[in-house]
């Protein structure tokens, strides 16, 4: 049986003591992907923030890699890669240098070759020497996603990775995430994209304020499709 990378048991998250959603329970084993789905403001991102240590859980239990979450641990940071919506960049570093900084910071060998490979994959080769201020919103999003893959990881956490990506790039991202699972990595992502859930996720948690049930990927995709636009 695959080892559980993330285990949340009646996990309660919120701000100022007030929970934002019903308690969430799930286990994410290695080599699998779990999607968090639900309406805007349901609490998906808040759950993700708790998993990567940016928010103290209000209740329940949460372990990542078999230990309580503590992002101050070097080992935790070495194994958990997260891509949130941090639209912030060093103004003087180019696109390639941002990726190189991340790769070298994690001790990746052959960082230059790896960076070039990811620039190609995320359609940023032409912008390798551009400063982030010269990029479009979608290109900046691709840079953030590439940074999530330019480093080693056991758990990959993504917050609505489909945002600001065109259809071709969404499809490439889905393939990338499937490859991630096949390589033994665990993927936890929040999304509104039914297709991404259907193709990548093995299970999904429908985050809501009344109950947050664990669903099959197909059922979750159907629920997303049924949500009002």
């Amino acid at each position, binding site marked *: 049986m695959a080892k559980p990378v993330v285990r949340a048991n009646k996990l309660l998250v919120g701000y100022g003591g007030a929970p934002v959603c019903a308690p969430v329970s799930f286990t994410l084993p290695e080599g699998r992907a779990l999607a968090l789905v639900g309406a805007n403001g349901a609490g998906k991102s808040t759950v993700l923030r708790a998993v990567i240590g940016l928010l103290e859980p209000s209740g329940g239990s949460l372990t990542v890699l078999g230990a309580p979450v503590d992002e101050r641990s070097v080992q935790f940071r070495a194994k958990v890669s997260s891509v949130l919506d941090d639209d912030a960049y060093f103004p003087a570093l180019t696109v390639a240098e941002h990726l190189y900084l991340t790769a070298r*910071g994690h*001790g990746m060998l052959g960082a230059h070759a790896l960076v070039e490979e990811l620039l190609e994959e995320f359609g940023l080769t032409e912008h390798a020497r551009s400063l982030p201020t010269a990029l479009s919103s979608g290109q900046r999003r691709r840079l953030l996603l590439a940074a999530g893959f330019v480093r080693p*990881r*056991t758990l990959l956490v993504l917050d609505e990775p489909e945002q600001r990506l065109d259809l071709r790039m969404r499809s490439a991202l889905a393939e990338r995430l499937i490859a991630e699972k096949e390589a033994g990595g665990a993927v936890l992502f929040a999304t509104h994209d039914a297709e991404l859930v259907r193709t990548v996720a093995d299970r999904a948690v429908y985050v809501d304020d009344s109950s947050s049930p664990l669903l099959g990927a197909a059922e979750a995709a159907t629920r997303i499709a049924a949500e009002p636009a």
Partner: protein
Amino acid sequence: MNDEWLADPVEGEEHVGLDGWPAVAEADLGEVPLAIELRRFTRKAARTRAGASLGSLLGGVYYAVIVAGTGVLLGLGIAQQLRVSLPPPPATADFSLSIPTLVAVILLALAGGLLSLAGRLGPVGAGGAEAAWWLSLPVDRRALLRPAALRLPMTAGAVFAVLVGLLDGGLLADNQGHLLRGAISGALAGVLIVVGAGLAQTAGASRRATAVAGDLLMLAALVGAVVLAATGRSIDRLPAPGWVAVGVLALVLVGLAVLMDRRLGRIRERGLRESGSVASQAAGAVVSMDSRELGRALADGAVRPTRRWVSRLRTARGAASALVTADLVVLRRSVRHLVQLAVTASVVVLVTLLPQLATEAGVLAAVMIAGYLAASATAEGARRAEMAPILDCLLPLAPTTVRRLRMAVPAVVMLMWSFVVFVALGRWAGDLPGWLAMGVASTPAWAAATVRAAYRPAPDWQKPLVATPMGALPTGVASVLARGPDVVVLGMLPLWIALVLRSVSPTLILAQVVTSVVAVLVASSTSTKSFMERAMDAQEADRASREGAGR
């Protein structure tokens, strides 16, 4: 559903811990570099692309030194002039403070202010790109955070050295050896306060707790001044720290700084991000000279993270009353602003009671500055509305009407504030009913000034610079920053005349009524241009139309 997805531990499963987890791309892993190497990499790239020549860098340093030096010398001159002009403490007064006591009170208040500021800013944080790209790296975070951890203590030390030097050399006028020791002690104390706040942060204390401790220290300074004045206790001379004491203080500080440095890695990422975000917002506000944004950054930096109760807005019966009710709710929820009102009123009362400060000039300065700070506390609703203009557009009201309605809460609150202050002025100058009438007459002008300041447009950096001995002065910025204070100075001219004369007359009260009406009309205007600019625009348009008719 398969057991592996359930949250409950599976029987026989081992607790694996952080070790022993295979990672994707692990085979390509080498040695993780030192944090300092990553910092150097980022700094080198920034230096390469900075685009600033050595000449412009030296020019910037030159201006900074000239501005700082001129400011310090001006401050010293004012402080020395103040010492000469202040009357000696009367031998028989019931209520008085000696200058050394006053300096001690000011120093305590400054220490509280610095602690409060350090708490609101973190003091250690990592904002923007640093948070996004550095904090996730598996390196010793201390080396990444060290520059940020040093910035505020060093700045505080420099500012405190100057302030203590000004107070010591100006108001106390001791010998130069004492002055140097005082300035060094001030610098060390400033650094110590921020390092103390940093240690509290590494121990997990909330930024709010540190900020509140600083606020309480400031309040204690004010209460202490009142108690000392009321009981007639004063100190004749502030003890000068000896060189041994300065050395011991420096050693203690080094020890605490090393301890803080060792514990930097204990600060959680969310705390670093929050502090970094507040510091970036505050720094941006200072650079763009936006006092409203600075106030928002520092106020939000210490807000309690709890959910608000939902106000039922019972007094909202229509668009106008909804707007006024909303302003009232904003004020009622901001304890900081209510404290600001109480403290500013107390300061004026204290100044009128202290024989050394209760000169015409002293009382005028106290009423003007404290009054404007008090009025500023009442216009948070207007400031928020200026930041998000949609709030004003939501209600079916003309923009001019919105501005006038935004003056309602400030006017009512300033009426209550004025009652306390003008009773004290009545006691100070005699003729209590006359001063109370003057207080009522001036209330609309306070409200007009604060609403005008709240709605001031963004500074215009395109306008020409004026060369001054202190460097280039951007006129577009100065004219914008003057919006609000200009109404205080001009719209309350009869009150200032009455304070200078220490006497109030029906003519002055009537004149104040007229200037208050004018102030309200000026503050109701939605035009972002000054009167002069509008006159020039009208002249230009008139000339253009005449030329068009001539053709």
